[in-house]
């Protein structure tokens, strides 16, 4: 049985009347919690003459314990029955609930913080409904197959085949165990609006030639970037950052809007002459109607170039 940690618990132990042979040889019942003998005054024998005992533990402070009912036989407690006790807490509402659409793995992965430990097996179920985009998901259409997260993983993924990417869904996570259940706040999202793109690919391009000479323009680097294969169809805004090797701080280059092309080139100038730089780039699904439509990708792998 499962109870609140610290709550009282009662148990009873009765010797069947057809075990009269037992009652002839042993008359005393003792209780043990794991290996510890319980105080006699917690229990009281039956008044109706049958051999049995009821016990009440004032507070159960073990999250797991075995309560044993024993018959004293020649000084040795004979265990004749056991109850497995579990104690813990009902789940708190999961917090920091967020979702990411991964176009490569083709799944919507949501994660959350479970809150205080419940000490009990607790299930987290990711629930979602197709919704209409009109009323902020007040009206629900058909349910999407929910996803049950393995204990302690605090994330769950719904395969894209279950999801409309460009329709609103009402999604939340429900925590439940033997002592209760609790829900996270709901999200009302277009899965594509929480897309996290794969990082772009950054490469060196042929150095830019100076306006009137055949030498590359000093303090400039010509870069070639390409969208990740899984998000070529997505219009993206990108950021570049560069750093002198060994330094910690990065210099951020303002947005370059990729528009619909898959790849492009970019001239990064204003750099020191004959100096080695480390460069990285990241992108986000760009503003459909003005606001950002997803999570920034991770930074691309670093590219090391030296200006000439």
């Amino acid at each position, binding site marked *: 049985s499962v109870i609140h940690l610290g709550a009282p618990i009662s148990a009873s132990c009765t010797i069947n009347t057809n075990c009269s042979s037992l009652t002839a040889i042993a008359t005393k019942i003792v209780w043990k919690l794991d290996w510890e003998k319980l105080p006699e005054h917690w229990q009281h024998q039956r008044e109706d003459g049958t051999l049995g005992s009821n016990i009440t533990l004032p507070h159960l402070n073990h999250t797991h314990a075995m309560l044993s009912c024993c018959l004293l036989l020649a000084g040795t407690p004979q265990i004749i*029955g056991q109850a497995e006790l579990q104690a813990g807490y009902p789940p708190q509402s999961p917090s920091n609930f967020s979702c990411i659409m991964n176009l490569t793995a083709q799944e919507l992965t949501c994660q959350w913080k479970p809150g205080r430990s419940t000490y009990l097996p607790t299930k987290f179920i990711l629930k979602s409904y197709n919704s209409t985009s009109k009323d902020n998901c007040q009206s629900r259409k058909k349910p999407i197959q929910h996803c049950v997260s393995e204990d302690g993983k605090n994330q769950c993924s719904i395969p894209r085949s279950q999801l409309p990417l460009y329709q609103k869904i009402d999604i939340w996570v429900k925590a439940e165990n033997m002592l209760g259940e609790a829900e996270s706040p709901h999200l009302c999202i277009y899965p594509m609006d929480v897309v996290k793109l794969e990082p772009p690919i950054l490469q060196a391009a042929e150095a830019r030639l100076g306006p009137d000479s055949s030498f590359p323009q000093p303090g400039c680097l010509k870069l070639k970037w390409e969208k990740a294969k899984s998000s070529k169809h997505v219009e993206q805004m990108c950021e570049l950052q560069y750093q002198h090797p060994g330094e910690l701080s990065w210099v951020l280059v303002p947005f370059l809007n990729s528009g619909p092309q898959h790849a492009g080139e970019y001239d990064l100038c204003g750099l020191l002459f004959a100096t080695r730089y480390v460069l990285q780039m990241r992108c986000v699904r760009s503003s459909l109607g003005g606001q950002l439509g997803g999570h920034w990708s991770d930074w691309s792998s670093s590219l090391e170039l030296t200006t000439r």
Partner: protein
Amino acid sequence: PLSSSNYLPQSFLPQIQEQVRKIQNDIEELQQRLCADYSLCHPEELILVGQYLGIPKPLLKNCYSQDLSLVACLNQLHYGLQFYQGLVKALEGISPELAPTLNILQLDVGDFAANIWQQMEDLQVAPEIMPTQGTLPTFSSSFQRRAGAVLIFDYMQGFLDMAYRDLRHLSQS
């Protein structure tokens, strides 16, 4: 005393020793788990339950007596091992944590029984048909199954000690 055809080959003994050690290691691991997880540590605290469940103890009496007979001893040993394999199988569902080791124990006991049967075939003393198992106890609660496990494992350790001593005795010195 045994005639030479009534002895087990000397090469058989190291294998048996290894198998007995493996089975006894499996049992020790299960006994430690039952003690840690369910406070069921001492068979002497389960005498009453043992009587109630009526768990039989296969004997090995022909292996160490005056009228020593290799065939009777191997038969009893094989029967006992098969019976214990059945008893271990009856414990299935005892708990998810114990299940993997219980599974391995069943395989190890089965291997040991098969090895004894192979020896009987090689010595041309194997009966035509393999004897069937005796009736197994039934457990009506998880407590009974766990208490039964403590008792069965205790009996098995004793049986294996005797089995190894007898097989050493039966191997040509």
